């Protein structure tokens, strides 16, 4: 099994799906100049809402749609606070994660121990992969994508040109929430086949790290998701096959990769004049239209 490269590739792609969705969503949010650290909270909300809806209707597809809506709904709380009330984005994002974890712990109680029928969800995996070129095209070749980037790079200038900064950011945040929700639902519906409190277990934080690692590009996000998600699953497979693998090193690998990426990014930012691969200029800054 471990020696069949095609089977391993399929495994890796499937394993990377939850963080791919969440990271692509967060990348769009950050490209709009907003830093939402609530990914873990939105993922876990999607995991529960998706599982509950799939369980109630018997349709996993309905589950994924419900998860997207639930993730988006939670992200709107963040949007109201940061865009409307101008709260600090970092603190609000952290609060959103805690809120999501607590909320799902409470509402998830009836679903503890409920089993889901195993089904295949290849279409979700393909949808995740298709998102990569689509988002690349949108951010680099479409008018609306370029406007979104302008908002993220310099919101004062974008506002001066008459672009609706807050409306675009609201849309980006909701999109990020929906993507995180779908990623979370993939964990509960397709991977673990049940609901368990706290089941995303830090996947949202890995997604946030991947966005940085990827230098805010969709292809980089795909590479990061495959690397982080793939390393984990390959490492488990290698152990099962009896290879001696240093477990501590592999457990630390996502964090090591993140540190390496941060070093590379700061170096790239220093030496590149185009600004490619560096953070959007207005990332994390509160926007308040004064004119």
């Amino acid at each position, binding site marked *: 099994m471990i020696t069949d490269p095609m089977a391993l590739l399929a495994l890796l792609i499937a394993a990377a799906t939850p963080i791919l969705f969440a990271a692509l969503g967060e990348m769009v949010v950050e490209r709009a100049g907003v830093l939402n650290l609530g990914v873990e909270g939105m993922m876990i909300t999607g995991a529960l809402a998706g599982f509950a809806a799939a369980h109630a209707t018997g349709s996993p597809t309905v589950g994924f749609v419900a998860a997207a809506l639930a993730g988006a709904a939670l992200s709107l709380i963040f949007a109201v606070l940061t865009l409307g009330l101008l709260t600090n984005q970092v603190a609000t994002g952290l609060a959103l994660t805690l809120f999501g974890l607590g909320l799902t712990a409470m509402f998830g109680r009836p679903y503890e121990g409920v089993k889901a029928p195993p089904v295949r969800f290849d279409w979700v995996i393909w949808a995740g992969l298709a998102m990569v070129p689509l988002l690349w095209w949108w951010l680099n070749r479409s008018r609306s994508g370029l406007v979104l980037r302008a908002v993220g790079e310099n919101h004062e200038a974008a506002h001066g040109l008459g672009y609706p900064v807050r409306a675009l950011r609201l849309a980006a945040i909701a999109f990020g929430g929906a993507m995180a929700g779908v990623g979370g639902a993939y964990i509960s519906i397709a991977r673990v086949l049940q609901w368990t409190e706290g089941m995303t277990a830090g996947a949202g934080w890995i997604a946030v790290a991947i966005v940085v690692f990827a230098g805010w590009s969709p292809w980089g996000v795909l590479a990061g998701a495959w690397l982080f998600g793939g390393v984990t699953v390959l490492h488990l497979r290698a152990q099962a096959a*009896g290879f001696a693998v240093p477990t501590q090193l592999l457990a630390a690998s996502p964090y090591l990769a993140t540190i390496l990426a941060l070093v590379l990014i700061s170096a790239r930012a220093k030496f590149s004049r185009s600004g490619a691969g560096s953070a959007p200029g207005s990332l994390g800054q509160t926007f308040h239209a004064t004119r």
Partner: protein
Amino acid sequence: MDRRTLLASAAGLATLAALPVRAQAIEPLKVGFIYVGPVGDGGWSYQHDLARQAIEKTYGDKIKTTYIESVPEGADAERALTQLALAGNKLIFATSFGFMDAVINVAKKFPDVKFEHATGYKRADNVSTYDARFYEGRAVIGTIAGLMTKSNKIGYIGSFPIPEVVQGINSAFLAARKVNPSVEMKVVWVSSWFDPAKEADAAAALIAEGVDVFMQHTDSTAPLAKAQEAGVYGFGQASDMANFKPKPRISSIIDNWTPYYTRRVGAVLDGTWKSEGVWLGIGDGEVEIGEITDAVPADVKAKAEAVKDALAKGELHPFTGPLKKQDGSDWLADGQKATDEELSGMNFFVEGITAQLPS
């Protein structure tokens, strides 16, 4: 002071005076608990909370319990313990290994409060430690696994390579080998106590390698959900995990803390509590084997129950020589039993396990 206040105070004093003097003597003993996970984890913390509810039933209004759940190991634990001590709890159970230093620090500040720390090894005059011989339970389910496997490949999902987990892997393997000499053990480490997605992936990895019966030393039911999907067998861990009966869950190891908690509360109530360190197993009722379901043939069930009874009576020790270590060096001579000290520092696999133990 106006008249109304004066009257109210007088009424209050009169009420106080009317109370029986015995009121102070039957002031309930306050007992506090801190848990590392949510009470709804369906495993480790859930079992500790069942024991808390049981002592409430047993002692009624003689005691009053409170708990704090999902306490991270570290500074937060110290805060939670201090909070419980300040609230008047005179006996406090700290139910995770990682609370160890926090317990010792807080115990210094509250010499009149008694602390009980699960699975740790640091004690003081007002700090006891208690642990369970999970490896005895592993010998029972290892017997079942060795007899139930058709592929002769059994698997183990480990959290961290610490002695407690290594004991379990060795014990399960030795018991399986005893009843099935051609059995092989495959081991996967997930580097977490609780990560359902990773646990599910680990189960899938074992299944892909041809494993058809596996055990776990992690806290979620995700591996059982995978076992169900693949049509292989698994076991409940820490809690019965009865939702997965009759299969894939064919039996379970249950941590039953009720007898110990009942005894320790009783000792505080009658003034006989003193600091000690205990390590209890099947014979003490602290480690239980959950129902062996009908998916298991009667003769296999009988063999597993014979192992359980022998362990309970103390006639069988899972680690009895002759035994060699994985590298072929001698460990226990014929008839020699492993000492508790050797077990609590166990950092090697026994001969016959081919998986490598991460150093």
